[in-house]
């Protein structure tokens, strides 16, 4: 009997993937703090996580050539749609990065990532306890 490991771990693997993707987006924002006309982006965590949990009901399109642009499938958290941030105070050079806010978001995201890791770790420990019976 195959172990339904994906179901056992719950939403945490998807949350982990999404957090990793979000940290990339926030790192890009922080790297472009001084780039003129750069618009800060972010992942809509809630809706992206909700979408990644649902299985795709439509048939996927096949990419038969390397130049084909991949479609966003709802089952894949890594191809999540990015949204532009609404700036609190816009700067003259067209840059919308607020580095303090980005730092706060980055820290929050890191804690989320670590929380997901802790949850998965605990699940594995429970499994080990069940297997060894000790």
């Amino acid at each position, binding site marked *: 009997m195959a172990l339904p490991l994906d179901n056992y771990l719950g939403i945490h693997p998807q949350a982990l993937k999404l957090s*990793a993707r979000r940290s990339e987006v926030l*790192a890009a924002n922080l*790297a472009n703090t001084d780039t003129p006309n750069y618009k800060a982006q972010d992942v809509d965590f809630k809706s992206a996580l909700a979408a990644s949990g649902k299985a795709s009901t439509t048939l996927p399109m096949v990419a038969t050539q390397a130049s084909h642009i991949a479609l966003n499938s709802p089952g894949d958290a890594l191809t999540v749609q990015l949204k532009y941030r609404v700036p609190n105070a816009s700067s003259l050079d067209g840059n919308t990065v607020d580095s303090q806010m980005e730092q706060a978001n980055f820290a929050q995201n890191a804690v989320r990532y670590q929380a997901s890791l802790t949850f998965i770790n605990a699940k594995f420990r429970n499994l080990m306890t069940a297997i060894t019976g000790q």
Partner: protein
Amino acid sequence: MPSFSIFDIAGSGMSAQNVRLNTTASNLANADSVSSTAGAAYKARHPVFKSVQAALNQPKTGTSVKVMGIMQSQDKTPARYEPGNPLANSEGYVYASNVNVVEEMADMISASRSYQNNVEVMNTSKDLMLATLKLGQ
């Protein structure tokens, strides 16, 4: 973190800020340089940043930052009357650099803060990556 591109992004930010710090150092060092002609006088240098996507059909990759080039300030180079200066022209004028020292100091602080931000991003990502490696142990 399954992807290593975060290191490329933060690294590109660090290298761009490093170029900015270099130009600031050059500007501050040459703030008092003089020259005999207005054209040859030292002009303040500033880098131009641009965000770049790794590839068009790879929307997954984040945007890193790239230094497009170094631009020289178009401000006027002030003429000073210093007939005793060996570099003075026939009328006794020397042309000073157009470096604004206060502006450069502010630029330096901004660049060093941005650099620190990128280092912090890299450190946090490294810690999370190491924690992921230890998963299940």
